[in-house]
C-alpha cells in the first residue's frame, strides 16, 4: 500500500473526543481512573492505555465578544518519516516503519528499554512498568492495511480528521490553509505522516505539549551516526594493528636472564 497520511484540521475540532473513545474501543484499551484538574482534558495525559488524547488549552482571546479561546488538539503519534524511535530501538521488530508510513510497535519484541521514549521529539511512547513495554498509536495499522481509515478518523464528527494517500492529504492541507488562513505544523521541515492545520488565531506555542521545533535529537545523531560506527572501527582497527604488530615485531620476550628478545632471531 502506498504512503498515507493523516490530516488533523484544528480549525474543525470541537473537542468531542469521539476519536479518543474510538481509539480505546478499536484497540481494546482499558479505561483509566481519572481526576478533575479544572480542565476538560480527560484523562490528563497519554498513557499505555490511552494512545490518543484531545488536549484542552485556554488562550486569552483577542476577540472582543469572548474572553477565552478554546484550543483543542488531538494528540497521538506523529508517525515520523525519519522516526527517531525506530532508530533508537535495540530490538529488531519492536518498532517498525511500514511502507504505509505508520510507525508500529510490536509488544512481542519490545524489551522495555525506554530508548524510544527518550528519542521521541513529541514525547509520545508510554512505558508501563508492569508490562515492561511501551505502547502508542499505530495509525490503526490493522485497519489501514485492510483499506479502512483509522478508528479515530472513522469516528470524527466534524471532518477534522482526514486520512488518505500522501499526495492527496498534502494537496488538501495546502488548499485548506489558503481557505481558512491557517498554518501547517510541523513547519520546520521535519517530516511526519500526521500533520496539523493550526488556526490563525492560535500559535503553535499556545498548544500544550506540542514541540514547536521537532527534530531528531542531536544526541541520537551523534551516538547513532558517529560513535556506533566508531566503536567497530576503533575495536577492529586496534585489533588489526595489534595483529600486524605481532606479525612484524613478534612477541616481546624476556629470557630467564632478564634480557629482552624483540624477535625470534636469536
Amino acid at each position, binding site marked *: 500500500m502506498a504512503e498515507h497520511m493523516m490530516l488533523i484540521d484544528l480549525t474543525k475540532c470541537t473537542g468531542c473526543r469521539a476519536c479518543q473513545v474510538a481509539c480505546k474501543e478499536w484497540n481494546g484499551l482499558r479505561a483509566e481512573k481519572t481526576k478533575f484538574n479544572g480542565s476538560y482534558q480527560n484523562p490528563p495525559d497519554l498513557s499505555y492505555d490511552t494512545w490518543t488524547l484531545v488536549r484542552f488549552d485556554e488562550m486569552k482571546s483577542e476577540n472582543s465578544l469572548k474572553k477565552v479561546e478554546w484550543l483543542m488538539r488531538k494528540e497521538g503519534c506523529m508517525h515520523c518519516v525519519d522516526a527517531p524511535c525506530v532508530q533508537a530501538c535495540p530490538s529488531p521488530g519492536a518498532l517498525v516503519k511500514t511502507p504505509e508510513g505508520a510507525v508500529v510497535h510490536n509488544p512481542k519484541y519490545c524489551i522495555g528499554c525506554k530508548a524510544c521514549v527518550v528519542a521521541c521529539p513529541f514525547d509520545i511512547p508510554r512505558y508501563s512498568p508492569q508490562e515492561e513495554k511501551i505502547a502508542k498509536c499505530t495509525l490503526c495499522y490493522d485497519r489501514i492495511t485492510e483499506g479502512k481509515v483509522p478508528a479515530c478518523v472513522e469516528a470524527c464528527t466534524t471532518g477534522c480528521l482526514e486520512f488518505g494517500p500522501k499526495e492527496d492529504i498534502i494537496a488538501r492541507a495546502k488548499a485548506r490553509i489558503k481557505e481558512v488562513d491557517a498554518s501547517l505544523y510541523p513547519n520546520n521541515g521535519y517530516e511526519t505522516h500526521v500533520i496539523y492545520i493550526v488556526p490563525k488565531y492560535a500559535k503553535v506555542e499556545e498548544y500544550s505539549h506540542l514541540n514547536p521545533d521537532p527534530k531528531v535529537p542531536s544526541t541520537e545523531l551523534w*551516538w547513532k551516526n558517529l560513535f556506533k560506527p566508531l566503536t567497530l572501527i576503533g575495536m577492529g582497527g586496534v585489533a588489526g594493528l595489534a595483529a600486524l604488530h605481532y606479525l612484524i615485531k613478534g612477541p616481546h620476550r624476556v629470557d630467564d636472564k632478564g634480557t629482552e628478545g624483540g624477535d625470534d632471531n636469536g
Partner: protein
Amino acid sequence: MTREPKGVMIMASKEDMVRITDAQERITHWILAGSFLIALITGLGLMYHHWSIIPTIFGGYYASKWIHIFSGVMFGLSLVMAIPMWWKECLFVEGDGKWIMKAGGYLWDAEDIPPAGKFNAGQKIFYWFVVVFGVILVVTGLIMANALSFPVVVARWAFMLHAMSVFVLASFLMVHIYLGTIGNPGTIQAMLHGWVTRAWASVHCPRWLEEKVDNTSSSSNS
C-alpha cells in the same frame, strides 16, 4: 638447570619468582574485566541489529537487556573496588612523559626508556581511562535504565555519552589485551597467580623490583 629455548617461560624455582599482585587485585581485575566484556558483548548485540547472533546466545533481546544491566552493575561495583586499590600506584611520576613518547619500547624499538614501576605509564593511562570512562558508563547506564526518572535532555545525553565511552574504552581495551597477552609473553601470569619471574620484572617493572622487592626483606615478597 638446562637452558630452555629462548622465550619459553620456564617454571623457575621460587627464588627466581616474585609476586607482583595480591589476590584481591587479581579477583578485582577479573570481575572488572569479565563484567565489562559481558556488558560490551551484549551491548554490541543490542546496538548492531546485524549481530542478532549475540542476543541469541544470551537468550534473546529481553534477556540481553537484563544481562547488560546486571553486568553493568557488577562492573560498577568492581570499579568501586578497583579505584581505591590502584590509584596511588597509577599516579604519574617523573619520567612517565618520556616513557610515553617512546611507548616504553613496547611498540617500536627505543633506547633509554625511564624504568617503569609496578605499572608503566601506558598502564597508568589505561587505568585513568577506565576510571573516567568507566564511571561515565556506569552513571549514564543507570540513567538509561531509569530514563523516565530524569529530564529527557539528561537521558538523551546519557545515551550519547554511553556510546562515546564504549568507543573509547573498548578500543583501548584491545591495546590492553594485546600487550598483556601475546604481545608480552609471561605478563598474563601477573593477573593469573601473581608470580612473575625476576627476569620479567627486571624488564617490565625494574623500578618496582628495585624499590619494593629488593629493598624490603626477601621473605616478604609473597
